[in-house]
Protein backbone atom coordinates (compact mmCIF):
# COMPACT_ATOMS: atom_id res chain seq x y z
CA UNK A 1 0.00 0.00 0.00
CA UNK A 2 1.15 3.47 -0.68
CA UNK A 3 0.98 6.29 1.74
CA UNK A 4 -0.10 9.55 0.23
CA UNK A 5 2.55 11.22 2.24
CA UNK A 6 5.60 9.79 3.77
CA UNK A 7 5.99 11.69 6.98
CA UNK A 8 9.36 10.09 7.67
CA UNK A 9 10.93 11.77 4.72
CA UNK A 10 11.86 15.34 5.41
CA UNK A 11 11.33 17.71 2.55
CA UNK A 12 14.33 19.87 1.78
CA UNK A 13 12.34 22.81 0.49
CA UNK A 14 10.00 22.94 3.45
CA UNK A 15 11.86 25.81 5.02
CA UNK A 16 10.04 25.33 8.29
CA UNK A 17 6.82 27.00 7.20
CA UNK A 18 3.75 27.41 9.38
CA UNK A 19 1.35 24.64 10.31
CA UNK A 20 -0.01 24.07 6.82
CA UNK A 21 0.41 20.82 4.97
CA UNK A 22 2.95 22.14 2.49
CA UNK A 23 5.97 20.24 3.69
CA UNK A 24 4.08 17.00 3.26
CA UNK A 25 3.29 17.46 -0.40
CA UNK A 26 6.16 17.97 -2.70
CA UNK A 27 3.97 18.41 -5.75
CA UNK A 28 0.39 18.53 -6.99
CA UNK A 29 0.45 14.86 -7.97
CA UNK A 30 1.59 13.98 -4.47
CA UNK A 31 -1.32 15.90 -2.94
CA UNK A 32 -3.77 14.35 -5.37
CA UNK A 33 -2.56 10.83 -4.61
CA UNK A 34 -2.89 11.56 -0.91
CA UNK A 35 -6.50 12.70 -1.32
CA UNK A 36 -7.41 9.66 -3.41
CA UNK A 37 -5.81 7.35 -0.90
CA UNK A 38 -7.40 9.08 2.08
CA UNK A 39 -10.85 8.72 0.55
CA UNK A 40 -10.12 5.13 -0.44
CA UNK A 41 -10.94 5.92 -4.05
CA UNK A 42 -9.57 3.90 -6.92
CA UNK A 43 -7.23 5.71 -9.24
CA UNK A 44 -9.20 4.27 -12.14
CA UNK A 45 -12.49 5.68 -10.93
CA UNK A 46 -11.87 9.04 -9.32
CA UNK A 47 -15.00 11.02 -8.39
CA UNK A 48 -13.60 14.18 -9.95
CA UNK A 49 -16.05 16.51 -8.30
CA UNK A 50 -15.20 15.43 -4.75
CA UNK A 51 -11.48 15.35 -5.37
CA UNK A 52 -11.54 18.71 -7.08
CA UNK A 53 -13.27 20.33 -4.08
CA UNK A 54 -10.91 18.75 -1.57
CA UNK A 55 -7.93 19.78 -3.64
CA UNK A 56 -9.12 23.39 -3.68
CA UNK A 57 -9.63 23.25 0.06
CA UNK A 58 -6.06 22.16 0.60
CA UNK A 59 -4.83 24.80 -1.73
CA UNK A 60 -6.56 27.48 0.33
CA UNK A 61 -4.81 26.16 3.42
CA UNK A 62 -1.46 26.45 1.71
CA UNK A 63 -1.23 30.21 1.91
CA UNK A 64 2.49 30.23 2.43
CA UNK A 65 3.08 28.59 -0.93
CA UNK A 66 6.20 29.77 -2.67
CA UNK A 67 5.33 31.46 -5.92
CA UNK A 68 7.21 28.95 -8.05
CA UNK A 69 5.59 26.01 -6.32
CA UNK A 70 2.18 27.65 -6.31
CA UNK A 71 2.18 27.61 -10.08
CA UNK A 72 2.48 23.85 -10.12
CA UNK A 73 -0.39 23.42 -7.68
CA UNK A 74 -2.61 25.92 -9.48
CA UNK A 75 -2.01 24.22 -12.79
CA UNK A 76 -3.36 21.00 -11.33
CA UNK A 77 -6.31 22.87 -9.79
CA UNK A 78 -7.29 24.23 -13.17
CA UNK A 79 -6.98 20.80 -14.72
CA UNK A 80 -9.28 19.35 -12.08
CA UNK A 81 -11.75 22.17 -12.54
CA UNK A 82 -11.74 21.53 -16.24
CA UNK A 83 -12.50 17.86 -15.65
CA UNK A 84 -15.16 18.68 -13.08
CA UNK A 85 -16.95 21.05 -15.43
CA UNK A 86 -17.17 18.27 -17.98
CA UNK A 87 -18.63 15.81 -15.52
CA UNK A 88 -21.25 18.31 -14.37
CA UNK A 89 -22.44 19.30 -17.80
CA UNK A 90 -24.47 16.47 -19.27
CA UNK A 91 -23.32 15.82 -22.78
CA UNK A 92 -25.54 14.26 -25.39
CA UNK A 93 -22.88 12.07 -26.92
CA UNK A 94 -19.76 10.46 -25.49
CA UNK A 95 -17.38 13.22 -24.52
CA UNK A 96 -14.26 11.96 -26.20
CA UNK A 97 -12.03 14.87 -25.27
CA UNK A 98 -13.08 14.75 -21.63
CA UNK A 99 -12.43 11.03 -21.51
CA UNK A 100 -8.94 11.52 -22.97
CA UNK A 101 -8.05 14.20 -20.44
CA UNK A 102 -9.34 12.06 -17.62
CA UNK A 103 -7.37 9.11 -18.92
CA UNK A 104 -4.25 11.24 -19.06
CA UNK A 105 -4.70 12.19 -15.41
CA UNK A 106 -5.09 8.54 -14.44
CA UNK A 107 -1.95 7.62 -16.33
CA UNK A 108 0.07 10.40 -14.78
CA UNK A 109 -1.11 9.42 -11.33
CA UNK A 110 -0.17 5.80 -11.96
CA UNK A 111 3.23 6.80 -13.24
CA UNK A 112 3.84 9.08 -10.30
CA UNK A 113 2.79 6.33 -7.93
CA UNK A 114 5.38 4.03 -9.47
CA UNK A 115 7.99 6.73 -8.94
CA UNK A 116 7.00 7.01 -5.30
CA UNK A 117 7.28 3.25 -4.89
CA UNK A 118 10.82 3.19 -6.24
CA UNK A 119 11.67 6.30 -4.21
CA UNK A 120 10.53 4.64 -1.01
CA UNK A 121 12.67 1.59 -1.78
CA UNK A 122 15.62 3.92 -2.35
CA UNK A 123 14.79 5.65 0.91
CA UNK A 124 15.08 2.37 2.81
CA UNK A 125 18.40 1.61 1.13
CA UNK A 126 19.68 5.12 1.85
CA UNK A 127 18.96 4.75 5.58
CA UNK A 128 21.25 1.74 5.93
CA UNK A 129 23.85 2.54 3.33
CA UNK A 130 24.60 6.03 4.56
CA UNK A 131 26.06 4.28 7.60
CA UNK A 132 28.74 2.34 5.75
CA UNK A 133 32.37 3.37 5.84
CA UNK A 134 35.05 2.43 3.37
CA UNK A 135 38.48 1.43 4.64
CA UNK A 136 41.25 3.96 4.19
CA UNK A 137 44.42 1.93 4.39
CA UNK A 138 47.45 3.29 2.59
CA UNK A 139 50.24 1.48 0.81
CA UNK A 140 53.74 2.72 1.48
CA UNK A 141 55.14 4.53 -1.52
CA UNK A 142 51.86 4.70 -3.44
CA UNK A 143 49.67 7.73 -3.39
CA UNK A 144 46.18 6.40 -4.00
CA UNK A 145 44.61 9.70 -4.88
CA UNK A 146 40.87 9.93 -4.97
CA UNK A 147 40.37 9.56 -8.68
CA UNK A 148 37.22 9.80 -10.69
CA UNK A 149 35.63 6.79 -12.25
CA UNK A 150 35.91 7.57 -15.95
CA UNK A 151 32.35 6.42 -16.48
CA UNK A 152 31.11 9.09 -14.07
CA UNK A 153 33.12 11.95 -15.58
CA UNK A 154 30.50 14.07 -17.34
CA UNK A 155 30.30 17.46 -19.03
CA UNK A 156 29.68 19.18 -15.73
CA UNK A 157 32.87 17.80 -14.18
CA UNK A 158 34.77 18.73 -17.34
CA UNK A 159 33.42 22.28 -17.23
CA UNK A 160 34.12 22.48 -13.51
CA UNK A 161 37.73 21.41 -14.00
CA UNK A 162 38.15 24.03 -16.73
CA UNK A 163 36.79 26.82 -14.54
CA UNK A 164 39.05 25.70 -11.70
CA UNK A 165 42.13 25.84 -13.92
CA UNK A 166 41.22 29.25 -15.28
CA UNK A 167 40.55 30.61 -11.81
CA UNK A 168 43.88 29.33 -10.58
CA UNK A 169 45.55 30.86 -13.62
CA UNK A 170 43.90 34.21 -13.02
CA UNK A 171 44.94 34.23 -9.36
CA UNK A 172 48.59 33.49 -10.18
CA UNK A 173 48.66 35.89 -13.13
CA UNK A 174 47.27 39.22 -11.95
CA UNK A 175 46.12 41.48 -14.75
CA UNK A 176 48.78 43.93 -16.08
CA UNK A 177 49.07 47.23 -14.23
CA UNK A 178 46.61 49.77 -15.41
CA UNK A 179 48.28 52.72 -17.07
CA UNK A 180 46.58 55.93 -16.04
CA UNK A 181 47.58 59.41 -17.16
CA UNK A 182 49.92 61.05 -14.68
CA UNK A 183 48.21 63.47 -12.39
CA UNK A 184 51.47 65.06 -11.28
CA UNK A 185 54.10 66.16 -13.73
CA UNK A 186 57.75 66.21 -12.67
CA UNK A 187 58.24 69.47 -14.55
CA UNK A 188 55.54 71.21 -12.53
CA UNK A 189 56.94 69.88 -9.28
CA UNK A 190 60.44 71.05 -10.22
CA UNK A 191 59.14 74.54 -10.86
CA UNK A 192 57.14 74.59 -7.60
CA UNK A 193 59.99 73.20 -5.50
CA UNK A 194 62.56 75.59 -7.00
CA UNK A 195 60.37 78.62 -6.39
CA UNK A 196 59.58 77.52 -2.87
CA UNK A 197 63.22 76.90 -1.96
CA UNK A 198 64.18 80.26 -3.48
CA UNK A 199 61.55 81.96 -1.39
CA UNK A 200 61.92 80.10 1.91
CA UNK A 201 65.70 79.52 1.63
CA UNK A 202 65.35 76.24 3.48
CA UNK A 203 62.83 73.45 3.01
CA UNK A 204 62.69 70.32 5.19
CA UNK A 205 62.01 67.74 2.43
CA UNK A 206 60.84 64.76 4.50
CA UNK A 207 58.38 66.79 6.52
CA UNK A 208 57.22 68.38 3.29
CA UNK A 209 56.66 64.94 1.74
CA UNK A 210 54.92 63.64 4.86
CA UNK A 211 52.13 66.13 4.27
CA UNK A 212 51.46 64.70 0.84
CA UNK A 213 48.91 61.89 0.91
CA UNK A 214 49.05 60.96 -2.72
CA UNK A 215 51.87 58.53 -3.44
CA UNK A 216 52.01 59.60 -7.06
CA UNK A 217 52.65 63.16 -5.96
CA UNK A 218 55.39 61.99 -3.57
CA UNK A 219 57.09 60.11 -6.39
CA UNK A 220 56.90 63.16 -8.64
CA UNK A 221 58.35 65.35 -5.86
CA UNK A 222 61.24 62.98 -5.16
CA UNK A 223 62.11 62.75 -8.85
CA UNK A 224 61.82 66.54 -9.15
CA UNK A 225 64.18 66.98 -6.17
CA UNK A 226 66.77 64.63 -7.65
CA UNK A 227 66.51 66.41 -10.95
CA UNK A 228 66.91 69.86 -9.37
CA UNK A 229 69.93 68.71 -7.38
CA UNK A 230 71.46 67.30 -10.54
CA UNK A 231 70.93 70.61 -12.37
CA UNK A 232 72.29 72.56 -9.43
CA UNK A 233 69.08 74.48 -8.84
CA UNK A 234 68.95 73.30 -5.23
CA UNK A 235 71.34 71.74 -2.73
CA UNK A 236 70.32 68.95 -0.43
CA UNK A 237 72.02 68.02 2.81
CA UNK A 238 71.40 65.51 5.52
CA UNK A 239 73.40 65.35 8.76
CA UNK A 240 72.98 61.62 9.32
CA UNK A 241 71.11 58.62 8.00
CA UNK A 242 67.34 58.97 8.37
CA UNK A 243 67.71 62.56 9.50
CA UNK A 244 65.78 65.37 7.85
CA UNK A 245 66.92 66.42 4.39
CA UNK A 246 67.17 70.18 3.95
CA UNK A 247 66.86 71.78 0.56
CA UNK A 248 68.59 75.15 0.00
CA UNK A 249 69.07 77.33 -3.05
CA UNK A 250 71.70 75.83 -5.32
CA UNK A 251 74.67 77.39 -7.15
CA UNK A 252 72.85 77.61 -10.47
CA UNK A 253 69.79 79.42 -11.63
CA UNK A 254 67.01 77.14 -12.71
CA UNK A 255 65.02 78.31 -15.68
CA UNK A 256 62.30 75.79 -16.31
CA UNK A 257 61.94 76.61 -20.01
CA UNK A 258 65.65 76.28 -20.76
CA UNK A 259 66.16 73.26 -18.56
CA UNK A 260 63.39 71.21 -20.06
CA UNK A 261 64.55 71.90 -23.57
CA UNK A 262 68.09 71.00 -22.59
CA UNK A 263 66.90 67.94 -20.81
CA UNK A 264 65.07 66.66 -23.83
CA UNK A 265 68.00 67.16 -26.18
CA UNK A 266 70.36 65.57 -23.66
CA UNK A 267 68.21 62.53 -23.52
CA UNK A 268 67.96 62.27 -27.24
CA UNK A 269 71.75 62.52 -27.56
CA UNK A 270 72.32 60.12 -24.72
CA UNK A 271 70.41 57.28 -26.39
Amino acid at each position, binding site marked *: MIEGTNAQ*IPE*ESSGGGPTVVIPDFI*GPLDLLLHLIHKNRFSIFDIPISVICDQYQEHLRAMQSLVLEMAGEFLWMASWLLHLKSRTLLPRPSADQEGEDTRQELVERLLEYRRVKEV*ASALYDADIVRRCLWEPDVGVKGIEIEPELDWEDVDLRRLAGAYLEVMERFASTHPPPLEVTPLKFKVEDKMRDLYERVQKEKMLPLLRFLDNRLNSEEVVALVVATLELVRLGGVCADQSMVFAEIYLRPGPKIFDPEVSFRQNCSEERNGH
Partner: protein
Amino acid sequence: MDTDSLNAFVEAALLTSRGPVSIVGLTEAIGDAEVGEELVVEVLECLQELWRRQERGIRLETVAGGWRCVTPPNLDDALRAFHGLVAKQRLSQAGLEVLAIVGYRQPVTLPEINFVRGANSTGVVKTLLDRGLIRIAGRKKVVGKPFLYRTTKEFLVHFGLDTIEELPDPEKMVIDEVPEAN
Protein backbone atom coordinates in the same frame (compact mmCIF):
# COMPACT_ATOMS: atom_id res chain seq x y z
CA MET B 1 51.57 -17.31 -6.43
CA ASP B 2 51.02 -19.59 -3.43
CA THR B 3 47.70 -19.69 -1.58
CA ASP B 4 48.84 -17.61 1.38
CA SER B 5 50.20 -14.85 -0.84
CA LEU B 6 47.07 -14.93 -2.97
CA ASN B 7 44.83 -14.52 0.07
CA ALA B 8 47.03 -11.77 1.44
CA PHE B 9 47.14 -9.91 -1.85
CA VAL B 10 43.37 -10.01 -2.38
CA GLU B 11 42.76 -8.80 1.15
CA ALA B 12 45.29 -5.98 0.82
CA ALA B 13 43.94 -4.93 -2.58
CA LEU B 14 40.40 -4.72 -1.18
CA LEU B 15 41.42 -2.78 1.92
CA THR B 16 43.47 -0.23 -0.02
CA SER B 17 40.87 0.44 -2.72
CA ARG B 18 38.23 3.12 -2.88
CA GLY B 19 35.07 1.80 -4.42
CA PRO B 20 34.35 -1.67 -5.76
CA VAL B 21 37.16 -3.86 -7.07
CA SER B 22 36.60 -5.97 -10.19
CA ILE B 23 37.52 -9.62 -10.42
CA VAL B 24 39.10 -8.99 -13.82
CA GLY B 25 41.29 -6.28 -12.31
CA LEU B 26 42.43 -8.50 -9.46
CA THR B 27 43.17 -11.45 -11.75
CA GLU B 28 45.04 -9.26 -14.20
CA ALA B 29 47.19 -7.73 -11.47
CA ILE B 30 48.07 -11.18 -10.13
CA GLY B 31 49.20 -12.07 -13.64
CA ASP B 32 49.66 -15.75 -12.91
CA ALA B 33 48.35 -18.22 -15.49
CA GLU B 34 47.60 -20.63 -12.66
CA VAL B 35 45.30 -18.13 -10.95
CA GLY B 36 42.11 -17.74 -12.93
CA GLU B 37 39.02 -15.71 -12.15
CA GLU B 38 37.27 -18.68 -10.52
CA LEU B 39 40.07 -19.00 -8.00
CA VAL B 40 39.94 -15.28 -7.25
CA VAL B 41 36.19 -15.52 -6.69
CA GLU B 42 36.82 -18.43 -4.34
CA VAL B 43 39.27 -16.36 -2.32
CA LEU B 44 36.79 -13.46 -2.22
CA GLU B 45 33.98 -15.70 -1.01
CA CYS B 46 36.26 -17.13 1.65
CA LEU B 47 37.09 -13.63 2.88
CA GLN B 48 33.43 -12.64 2.80
CA GLU B 49 32.64 -15.62 5.01
CA LEU B 50 35.52 -14.83 7.36
CA TRP B 51 34.47 -11.21 7.76
CA ARG B 52 30.84 -11.99 8.35
CA ARG B 53 31.52 -12.86 11.98
CA GLN B 54 30.16 -10.68 14.72
CA GLU B 55 33.54 -9.59 16.08
CA ARG B 56 34.76 -8.36 12.70
CA GLY B 57 34.68 -4.67 11.85
CA ILE B 58 34.60 -5.10 8.11
CA ARG B 59 32.28 -6.78 5.58
CA LEU B 60 32.67 -7.68 1.93
CA GLU B 61 29.78 -6.84 -0.39
CA THR B 62 29.18 -7.20 -4.10
CA VAL B 63 28.13 -3.91 -5.62
CA ALA B 64 28.30 -2.09 -8.98
CA GLY B 65 29.87 -5.08 -10.67
CA GLY B 66 32.65 -5.51 -8.14
CA TRP B 67 33.57 -6.33 -4.57
CA ARG B 68 33.83 -3.69 -1.92
CA CYS B 69 34.85 -3.53 1.73
CA VAL B 70 32.62 -1.61 4.11
CA THR B 71 32.13 -1.43 7.85
CA PRO B 72 28.93 -2.91 9.30
CA PRO B 73 26.15 -0.30 9.59
CA ASN B 74 25.72 -0.73 13.34
CA LEU B 75 29.20 0.74 13.91
CA ASP B 76 28.25 4.05 12.29
CA ASP B 77 27.55 5.89 15.55
CA ALA B 78 30.80 4.79 17.16
CA LEU B 79 32.82 5.54 14.03
CA ARG B 80 31.31 8.99 13.72
CA ALA B 81 32.16 9.65 17.36
CA PHE B 82 35.69 8.41 16.75
CA HIS B 83 36.28 10.41 13.55
CA GLY B 84 34.39 13.42 14.86
CA LEU B 85 32.08 13.59 11.87
CA VAL B 86 28.40 14.39 11.68
CA ALA B 87 25.95 12.04 10.01
CA LYS B 88 25.74 12.22 6.23
CA GLN B 89 22.77 14.17 5.06
CA ARG B 90 19.73 12.19 4.06
CA LEU B 91 18.37 12.44 0.58
CA SER B 92 15.15 14.45 0.41
CA GLN B 93 11.92 12.94 -0.85
CA ALA B 94 12.18 15.09 -3.97
CA GLY B 95 15.74 13.85 -4.47
CA LEU B 96 14.67 10.24 -4.11
CA GLU B 97 11.84 10.77 -6.61
CA VAL B 98 14.19 12.26 -9.18
CA LEU B 99 16.62 9.38 -8.60
CA ALA B 100 13.78 6.92 -9.10
CA ILE B 101 12.77 8.59 -12.37
CA VAL B 102 16.32 8.79 -13.69
CA GLY B 103 16.95 5.25 -12.44
CA TYR B 104 14.31 3.49 -14.39
CA ARG B 105 13.68 5.82 -17.33
CA GLN B 106 17.24 6.77 -18.19
CA PRO B 107 18.40 8.56 -20.21
CA VAL B 108 15.91 11.26 -19.32
CA THR B 109 15.76 15.06 -19.63
CA LEU B 110 14.83 17.67 -17.02
CA PRO B 111 11.53 18.55 -18.74
CA GLU B 112 10.62 14.85 -18.69
CA ILE B 113 11.50 14.60 -14.98
CA ASN B 114 9.43 17.70 -14.26
CA PHE B 115 6.50 16.24 -16.16
CA VAL B 116 6.50 12.94 -14.33
CA ARG B 117 6.81 14.63 -10.94
CA GLY B 118 4.43 17.43 -11.83
CA ALA B 119 6.88 19.73 -10.10
CA ASN B 120 9.99 21.69 -10.95
CA SER B 121 13.09 19.63 -10.22
CA THR B 122 15.89 21.96 -11.28
CA GLY B 123 17.40 22.46 -7.85
CA VAL B 124 17.07 18.80 -6.97
CA VAL B 125 18.81 17.73 -10.18
CA LYS B 126 21.66 20.12 -9.40
CA THR B 127 22.04 18.69 -5.89
CA LEU B 128 22.12 15.14 -7.23
CA LEU B 129 24.72 16.12 -9.84
CA ASP B 130 26.84 17.66 -7.10
CA ARG B 131 26.54 14.52 -5.02
CA GLY B 132 27.63 12.46 -8.01
CA LEU B 133 24.50 10.30 -7.99
CA ILE B 134 23.45 11.30 -11.50
CA ARG B 135 25.48 12.51 -14.45
CA ILE B 136 24.93 14.31 -17.71
CA ALA B 137 24.97 11.87 -20.61
CA GLY B 138 24.83 14.08 -23.67
CA ARG B 139 21.95 15.99 -25.18
CA LYS B 140 18.61 14.86 -26.53
CA LYS B 141 18.12 15.51 -30.22
CA VAL B 142 14.97 17.58 -29.86
CA VAL B 143 14.33 21.31 -29.92
CA GLY B 144 16.49 23.05 -27.34
CA LYS B 145 18.79 20.02 -27.10
CA PRO B 146 18.18 19.44 -23.38
CA PHE B 147 20.72 17.46 -21.39
CA LEU B 148 20.09 13.79 -20.81
CA TYR B 149 20.65 12.38 -17.34
CA ARG B 150 21.75 8.94 -16.20
CA THR B 151 22.57 7.41 -12.86
CA THR B 152 26.24 7.00 -12.00
CA LYS B 153 28.32 4.13 -10.72
CA GLU B 154 28.30 6.02 -7.43
CA PHE B 155 24.49 5.64 -7.44
CA LEU B 156 24.84 1.86 -7.65
CA VAL B 157 27.43 1.87 -4.87
CA HIS B 158 25.37 4.13 -2.64
CA PHE B 159 22.22 2.06 -2.94
CA GLY B 160 24.00 -1.29 -2.93
CA LEU B 161 22.93 -2.37 -6.41
CA ASP B 162 25.02 -4.59 -8.63
CA THR B 163 23.49 -3.26 -11.85
CA ILE B 164 20.72 -0.80 -12.62
CA GLU B 165 18.43 -3.74 -13.44
CA GLU B 166 18.37 -4.52 -9.72
CA LEU B 167 16.28 -1.41 -9.09
CA PRO B 168 12.94 -2.60 -7.72
CA ASP B 169 10.33 -3.04 -10.41
CA PRO B 170 7.57 -0.50 -9.69
CA GLU B 171 4.99 -2.65 -11.48
CA LYS B 172 5.53 -5.47 -9.04
CA MET B 173 5.50 -3.21 -6.04
CA VAL B 174 2.09 -1.71 -6.60
CA ILE B 175 -0.38 -4.22 -5.24
CA ASP B 176 -3.70 -2.40 -5.42
CA GLU B 177 -3.53 -1.91 -9.16
CA VAL B 178 -6.82 -3.75 -9.61
CA PRO B 179 -9.69 -1.32 -9.07
CA GLU B 180 -12.03 -2.26 -6.29
CA ALA B 181 -15.74 -1.72 -6.49
CA ASN B 182 -16.95 1.06 -4.27
